[in-house]
């Protein structure tokens, strides 16, 4: 599953999302509308959008078939309104079956509208000097520079003023990423997915080993063993240790596969080993406790898989905790999955996960003691 999810989203992780298909209907057919088409054709936006000029009927047909994320309709007389600083309304028809991409187009158009509105206001009386705006089907290739001269002359002062504000831009925005996952440079989608899926896998694997406690209780094997020199605590510890060791062994294979198949960097291997050891102890103790409480195998079968899946759903194995609704995020703290994923993330950032380690170790010991108490009663009474 890690491989499938990773393969699907690996390109997205490199910020190469599929291009957003945008249909443009130009009802204005004048130079101002061509500014927008030119913008879509610029190198940065070309990486993001795939704009296609269509007539309205064809556009409607394609949108009704869901063939594009959005359709932008440039209104009639847009250029005329533009030079007169009068209001124009662009229509953005969004694909209703898509959840994100149409909103990107909408936000882009809102930003474009703000910038164009600014331009209109800055050069408001001067636009009228450009004869080209009055010509239908004007193109920059066919139009003469002479037609632009009155505008350039008249707007000279404005252009000089603009330079002070735009070159360099008076207010710039500098982006910084904070938080645990800020090491974007070596980002590997599998590193993001594997810890979550692997802890879910560990829960299932170790559970099957600790199920022996229940099987042996049901079969009466436990009571028979109590007639041997074996002490109850030794028997309980042996069962927990077998699940614990098996979990560690399985995780070592997962680590190895992560390195070989997914080229994962796990960080400090000693930290990882210590952390995985403690986590496997927690899981073994947790299921030892559950198996000491369950009455029979059917009850165990009915409860364990749902518990693991709920842990995984809320703990970040199925979906990142950061994406969960705020009300659910606190639930994640009572799951091992959350602490395990946090811990592995920290190890990968080169830090020992002290808090996750302490939480897992202490709660694991509490679970082990509880399991021992319950189990001792069940096998000795």
């Amino acid at each position: 599953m890690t491989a499938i999810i990773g393969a699907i989203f690996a390109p997205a992780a490199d910020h190469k999302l599929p291009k957003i298909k945008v249909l443009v209907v130009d009802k204005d057919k004048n130079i101002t509308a061509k500014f927008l088409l030119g913008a879509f054709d610029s190198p940065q936006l070309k990486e993001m959008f795939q704009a296609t000029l269509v007539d309205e009927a064809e556009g409607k047909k394609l949108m009704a078939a869901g063939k594009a994320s959005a359709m932008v309709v440039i209104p009639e007389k847009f250029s005329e309104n533009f030079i007169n600083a009068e209001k124009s309304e662009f229509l953005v028809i969004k694909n209703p079956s898509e959840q994100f991409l149409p909103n990107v187009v909408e936000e882009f158009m809102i930003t474009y509208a703000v910038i164009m509105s600014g331009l209109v206001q800055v050069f408001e009386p001067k636009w009228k000097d450009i004869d080209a705006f009055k010509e239908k089907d004007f193109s920059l290739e066919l139009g003469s520079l002479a037609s632009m001269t009155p505008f350039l002359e008249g707007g000279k002062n404005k252009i000089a003023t603009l330079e002070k504000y735009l070159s360099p831009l008076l207010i710039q925005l500098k982006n910084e990423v904070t938080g645990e996952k800020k090491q974007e440079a070596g980002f590997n989608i599998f590193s993001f997915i594997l810890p979550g899926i692997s802890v879910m896998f560990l829960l299932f694997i170790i559970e099957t080993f600790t199920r022996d406690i229940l099987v042996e209780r049901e079969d009466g094997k436990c009571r028979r063993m109590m007639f041997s020199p074996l002490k109850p605590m030794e028997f309980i510890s042996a069962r927990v240790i077998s699940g614990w060791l098996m979990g560690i062994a399985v995780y070592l294979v997962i680590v190895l596969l992560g390195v070989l198949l997914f080229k994962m960097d796990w960080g400090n291997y000693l930290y990882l080993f210590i952390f995985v050891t403690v986590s496997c102890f927690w899981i073994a103790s947790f299921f030892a406790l559950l198996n000491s409480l369950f009455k029979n195998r059917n009850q165990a079968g009915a409860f364990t898989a749902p518990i693991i899946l709920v842990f995984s759903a809320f703990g970040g194995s199925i979906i990142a905790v950061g994406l969960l609704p705020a009300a659910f995020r606190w639930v994640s703290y009572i799951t091992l999955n959350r602490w395990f994923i946090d811990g592995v993330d920290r190890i990968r950032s080169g830090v020992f996960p002290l808090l996750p380690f302490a939480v897992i170790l202490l709660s694991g010991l509490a679970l082990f003691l509880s399991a021992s108490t319950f189990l001792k009663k069940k096998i000795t009474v």
Partner: protein
Amino acid sequence: MKKIWHIAFIDIKRMVRDKTYFFWTLLFPLVFIFIFGSIYKGDTQPTAASLVVLNRDTGPWGAYFIEKIKTPGIDVQVVDKEPAEYSRILIIPQDFSKKITDKEAQQLVFKKNADANTQAAAQVETKIIQAIAGTITELILHPDTATFFEERQPFKNIIEIKTGFPENTLKKMPSGFDHVIPGTIVQFIMMMVLIYGGSVVMEDRQQGVLARILFSSASIGELWGGKFLGRLVMGLIQAFILVITGKLFFNLNLGNNFLSLLNAVVFSITIASLSIFIGSVLNKEDLIIGISVLLANIFSALGGCWWPIEVVPQTFRTLGMISPAFWAMDSFHKIIFFNGGFGDIALNLIVLLGFALVFTFLAVRFFRIKD
């Protein structure tokens, strides 16, 4: 026909009596729906993206700029010192006003927590860029900062953006649940029918139940038909439970209900045949569960049940066509979001029936009465 119904009914009774049945058919899908539906909420339940603004500016421009950012989609919280935890923060420097007065270029730092929602971060960043564009335009129009606040001309939105959906489709923005529930229906039909359906076929064969049925007056065709019908009804029960839950609690819009039901029926037919095939060729329950979960998850991932298919690269969208889930999901999309009619989903139904034909051939070919 009565015998077919009887065999099917027994299988369904066994499935419903399983202690975990309601967890798998109702509770677990509900957790899925609730989590994913809340993530992909859509605009019908707008949640403002939070932005902490640390305003260190000693002049009036910092506060003015903050007012520009305050739009309906952004929840702005102004603070005096950088908090320990935040989703995203904009830091306005101490000399912000001074540099604006001196017409000196400057940088605002926008910090985004990598663990927080990236969609909300992009939304906030876009609004900040729009505020920057608006402020610079006003400054160009009124360069005298001394009299700016008294005499400035406020920014006018000359160009307005109106949004809508294609004609004859939706009138209002679909909710996240409208997107998520069809995917969950498709995924859990696969999970339930493959796991329960496959396991029961295998158990019945190993315990000699199939052979004993043939000692009655039931023919092999009726036996096979009963098993097939049982699995078809299992799929429909799963779909029915989720549709009712969706309608009652999440105001689910299924478009044309009849066509959505038809889509669920045809999809269940496909998966019913596949489950008999799996139950016929595999001999261990654990193996059937493992293979079924894996197949259901692979089909779901490729078919667009887990995430919006639009963010998946084209290669994987094309590859997704090998998954019956893709055709069922595409069909749901056409019905729910594009108000599609029978003609629009006919191809999808034909392809699904094609899958059903192949799986039925395999299921009949490998169907065994005893090991």
